């Protein structure tokens, strides 16, 4: 599927105010989230015997370059510690889009069988790093998913154990990536099929309307496109 997103930064002192504003705009209460994200590097390309796969299919991995993929799970959800892992692959954002970030992504919930590929020892993926996102809040406004969170890096040595099964690193050991305590803000809208121009127009119009609505309170911007590059360098 295709995603369009906008980003912003909220200083720690304004966080409470921004949550209130968003609660008013969306007419609902925030959902607290605590996400753990593992970053893996592809060691070898998936054998796409599907040469017949039509071009319109959502396969976010262009089978030419190795890229970084993520496994995400939400620890505050219904299952708590045993929440299932979601696989997420993001493409490089499309160039020439000054008003929002547009990229193709894939997201699936993986079961045990697929998770085997990510374990140490299998030649498919190599574990790179992980980070935690807490405290986090999520709002949903029509089709737009709005998230604010602070990102924490895990202490050294967490990658020694198998990260899929290891216990969650204790929060007191983790440090904020941004010591000033700024919150990272993202507004995202997803479209099933990036080729359907009517849907794409609808989605981008909705995203822009949201940006206009919170203008002044939250300034949504487009960061540099290549900062989202997920391709592995040097291959």
């Amino acid at each position, binding site marked *: 599927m295709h995603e369009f997103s906008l980003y912003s930064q909220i200083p720690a002192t304004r966080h409470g105010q921004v949550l209130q504003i968003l609660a008013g705009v969306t*007419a609902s209460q925030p959902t607290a989230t605590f996400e753990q994200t593992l970053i893996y590097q592809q060691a070898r390309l998936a054998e796409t015997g599907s040469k017949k796969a039509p071009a319109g299919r959502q396969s976010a991995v262009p089978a030419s370059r190795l890229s970084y993929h993520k496994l995400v799970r939400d620890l505050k959800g219904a299952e708590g510690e045993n929440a299932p892992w979601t696989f997420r692959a993001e493409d490089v954002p499309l160039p020439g889009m000054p008003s929002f970030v547009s990229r193709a992504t894939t997201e699936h919930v993986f079961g045990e069988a697929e998770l085997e590929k990510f374990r140490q020892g299998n030649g498919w993926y190599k574990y790179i790093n992980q980070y935690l996102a807490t405290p986090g809040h999520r709002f949903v406004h029509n089709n737009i998913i709005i998230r604010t969170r602070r990102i924490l890096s895990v202490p050294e040595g967490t990658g020694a154990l198998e990260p899929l099964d290891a216990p969650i690193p204790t929060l007191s050991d983790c440090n904020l990536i941004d010591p000033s305590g700024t919150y990272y803000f993202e507004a995202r809208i*997803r479209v099933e099929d990036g080729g359907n121009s009517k849907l794409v127009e609808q989605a981008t119009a909705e995203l822009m309307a949201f940006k206009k609505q919170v203008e002044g309170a939250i300034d949504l911007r487009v960061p540099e496109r290549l900062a989202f590059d997920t391709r592995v360098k040097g291959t």
Partner: protein
Amino acid sequence: MASLILRPWTHDSPDTSSLKDILARAQRGHFRDITEVSLQEEIAGEGTFELSESESDDEEEDKDEEISSAKPSTRDDLFKARLEMLRHVDAAHNDVMIALDFVSLLLTHDAPEKGKASISAGLRQEVPIGSLGHDIWHKMPQDKPREAQDKLLATNVRLESLQQSADSLLAAASRLEDNVRKETRYWDHVLSINENGWNVCKLPGQQHRLGVTYGFSDSAPEFARRGVAALNATSDGTMVLERGVGSKPRAVRVLLKRGEAVVGCSRIPALRNEGEVALEARIRHARDSLFDEELYHEMLRESRGQISLGISMKGTGIVLKPNSAESPHATKVVFELVSLGEVEDETGEAREQDSLAQAIALAARMLLSQAHREKVKKRSNVPPSMSERKDERTSLPILRPIMASMLHKAAIDQSNSYLASVGSLLSAASIEHRSQPAAFAFSKDTEAGIEGLVSTLMQCWTSEASLSLYDRQTTIRLETTLATSFGTQYTLSSADGRVTRFSSQEELRAACDDVLASELALHLKLGAGESWECNRREALLVRPDDEQGKGRRVWVTLDSEAGVLSLNTPTKKVSWGSPGGVAASFSDAWAELLD
């Protein structure tokens, strides 16, 4: 404020500058600061100012003369003096020529040749000759009374205009006071509404107008839009809601009818509560009316999709018939939307099932609130990615849980009446038995609060009834849920472990009768000895032919429809329960038949 003033045309442009400009010109600052006292002071001050001005003028003139009498000492001074003299001479010459022109023009009227000779060329071009004439007037005698009258007129006119300005100022002041009073009243009203818990907000399209929200944000869009009403101030300062909102309130009323007679009616909210201002009563009516209208609308939508469940419409009322088989004496539930003003009379008398009707009405409203809550929760979940699919609005489950409870209650009542009739039959035959009627079962661990209550209402209902004959228990289990099928599912478990399912009450009765009859037969066999054989399925006891060649066949029948329990042989029949029943007990009759 402005009165229509018609002024005569004047040569100059009329002075139509506004009050503001006049005041600005008056240069006295903001009109709020102008008071009588300050004006008086100014007048007093000006008088002294004028006098001092004239004095200073005299002094300056004396000084000038002194300076000009000093003789010119240097050559420059000489030239300067000469220039000045020439200037003066020029000016004098100019004045004289102008005077000459004037006189010549005058002359051209009477003696044209002489005048034309002396008039200058410039003036002749500008003005035609003979256009200035002269008359000699004698000096008029001084008309003292006329002058006095003129003076009086002038004073009066001045006085009148001052009076007029004073009047208009007074009118402005009183109007200002009026406005202030109206504003205070308006804000008092708004504050009182706010303090009573209503939400006062800014109206989205219109500036300078406040409104009250009383709607529910999670209703269907057409109802959510109607949930705001503007607050308007009328001319005398009272507040009204816009366009008659809340003036014709409506409410949903539940009627329980048996046949055509009304046996239960739910309560309708009062038209005016104690201690409530008319405005708040209107807002409350508007909110209740909106909620009930939405409730009716959703029930209507649901009923259209659920006709198979026995929900139908009659006129404007939605009719629920729990047992479509038994009519017309079964109780039906009718939901209708009535206007509060019209139906005050029906609620006068208390009827037998009023509390049930009221409970049904309350349950319907609670289910609607629960549906709103579910909507909010659904909205907060991560939405799927956008695609071309359009979701249809599913109908909210309001009638279905109510129908399920009513069906279950009806089933329980029927089972209990069946058990009671069988019990009475068995007692008539002096057979020892124990029965346990069915009842609504609530699990103990529901969460407190309204969500717990509603989840209890929406669960699948199960109940059990049992009858023990000689310590062997037969159980009937009732399950009602409208998710899978319509109506109650009955499960009959007999004491030997046979389990059968039925979906109608009649089948259950017949099967249960058979089971009980076979229980009785089994009991007889156990007491009778080895020579008898029992065919359990047909409740038949057979004693095969013995040496005397007398075979015996006895069977037990139990018929709860007719209300008869009987012990039969091919030749004799002993029965209990029917009008011609026997007083002997079951065991006695058996013993009799044995011989």
